[in-house]
């Protein structure tokens, strides 16, 4: 089976060599539909990792940085080298969904329009896009709020809308950046439950950035760690390693 993400020796360096920070993704191999939780303390490079996986931050060096969305192979490293930003933007639009920490909803669109937007950006007609958005909002118990603007919703409601927007176009990979960090426990649980249920139904791969390995395990996410390790000449460094092809692929 082909890997969805296939990264080997991908490095991102920030700042000068001494006193700077380096994130080394020694190996990250993810199968389609696999669910991972990226766990690490603050400042260990989780965000840097997420930036690179969301195709918004160029790696400094890499041996391999490939994706296999829709059965076709994309060599992300080569796209960055060519500066093909619009191709990367198209890949983001089609194959990646995002759940941000605090919604990241567009304040000038209604809940329904926010959720339908990824499909509209992919060229779908307004009618079907709205129907799909309505169905998904129904699933997230947010149908009554479809005509409201995000500003009138509670934080928990906004996160449900954010989940709907991330999943509406059935992306191959869903990236969630501590989506429940600002919610109370009850809200957090219901958002996570719905999120994982829909992921399961759609069979999509997801990477959930969180502080808590226990919480991740409780929702069926395999933990991988952003490990601080000694850097060159006193610089900070973190290492990520996860190889699905070696573990269960054979």
């Amino acid at each position, binding site marked *: 089976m082909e890997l969805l993400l296939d990264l080997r020796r991908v490095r991102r360096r920030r700042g000068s060599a001494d006193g700077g920070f380096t994130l080394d993704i020694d190996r990250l191999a993810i199968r389609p539909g696999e669910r991972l939780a990226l766990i690490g303390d603050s400042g260990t490079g989780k965000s840097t990792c*997420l930036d690179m996986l969301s195709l*918004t931050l160029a790696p400094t060096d890499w041996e391999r940085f490939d994706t296999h969305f829709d059965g076709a192979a994309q060599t992300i490293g080569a796209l960055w080298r060519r500066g093909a*930003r*619009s191709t990367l*933007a*198209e890949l983001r*639009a089609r194959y990646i969904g995002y759940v941000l920490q605090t919604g*990241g909803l567009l*304040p*000038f669109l209604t809940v329904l329009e926010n959720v339908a937007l990824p499909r509209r950006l992919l060229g779908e007609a307004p009618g079907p896009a709205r129907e799909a958005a309505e169905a998904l909002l129904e699933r997230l118990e947010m149908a009554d709020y479809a005509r409201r603007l995000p500003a009138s919703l509670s934080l928990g409601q906004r996160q449900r809308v954010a989940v709907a927007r991330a999943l509406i176009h059935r992306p191959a990979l869903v990236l969630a950046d501590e989506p429940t960090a600002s919610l109370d426990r009850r809200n957090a649980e219901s958002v996570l439950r719905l999120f994982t249920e829909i992921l399961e139904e759609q069979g999509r791969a997801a990477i959930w950035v969180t502080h808590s390995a226990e919480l991740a395990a409780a929702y069926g996410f395999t933990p991988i760690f952003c490990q601080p390790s000694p850097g060159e000449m006193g610089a900070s460094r973190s290492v990520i390693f996860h190889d699905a092809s070696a573990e269960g692929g054979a």
Partner: protein
Amino acid sequence: MPRPQIYRLALADLLHDRLVSFCQVALLVALFSPLLLLFSLKYGIVTTLLDELAGNPATLQVKPIGAYHLGPDFFVGLQARPDVRFVIPETRPIATQIYLSREPGAEAAPPSADVQMIATGPGDPMGEGHVLADAEGGISLSAAAARKLGVEPGAKLLGHVERTRAGQTEVASITLHVISVLPERLHPLISAFVDLALLVASERYRDDFAVPLFKTEGDRPWQEMTEFASFRLYAAELQDVAPLAAYLRGRGVEVTTAADQIEGVLALDRNLTILFSAVTALAGLGFIGAIAASMVSSVERKRRSMAVLSLIGLSRGSIIAFPLLQAAMIAIVGIVTGSILVLAGMAVINAYFLPVLHQGELAARLKPEHLAVAALAALLLVGLPAMAAAWRASRVEPSEALREI
């Protein structure tokens, strides 16, 4: 070309942020309408004054004072000048009298009048495009002369010129017909516009020459005139009057003109233009500053939204297009609203001034190209600050959406 979706999103954001959008439109209208209205008033007033002057050939006339000996060279030289619209020689004033009467018909004593002849020719501004006289006895009468004679165009007339020769009064007669009657406003006196040959014949007749045109004998044989005492001269344009007068004075011919009147209007136009330019420059600068501040701060406020749009797959081009499209929408609404206000304002001004204006005159007036230039200038004034906003937008990174701000 940005995705069609970006138009919808840009509009949705403008409508959501309607207070700021309204202020930006109001800012543009507050610049556009008063300035354009001021311009329409300047243009309307100056045009009306100039039209009034230009519509009256007398304004273009350069009148000689006194009698001269002006030969063919003088007239050929004048005719060759591009600032000359029309010139024709004039004889001595004493020789311009003609006695006109209607052909004797049923009436015993048909009306008659002593009329002053004025030479005319093709292109005479007094004809306003029509020929006033011809060599076959066709003449035109001033309104006063026509009234006195009780004739209309097409009427036949008899002309009589007198001379005293060896103590005897002699009269030469010629058959004439009326081609047209000049309106009162062009010439208020009792006059006839005639072919130059008729004037020359009268002067020669009085000087005792034989005159073939009148079929009369004389003490001296017929001789064409080569020198004239005076002339009737019109400049091509209002601004040509002063240089033409200077040229004639340089050749020893003293003249009077309506130059003061013309110079007054042209100076008014110049001063109003300077005033208008100064006001426009100051207002434009203030506008750019205000709208730039508003647009750039809008982009800063919407940074997160733009980052999110970028993250979920809008290209950088579309993100840059976002503030540009919004600026274009603001500009279009502002220009349309402003133009409607200007047209309404012009209608009010023109209605107010209607009682003091002549038929067809307007106090406030705009040509379509004025409106087009104003709209283009407004687009430019909105476009420049929008570029600054777009530059800010181009610096938004999609990864900013992933951060807490």
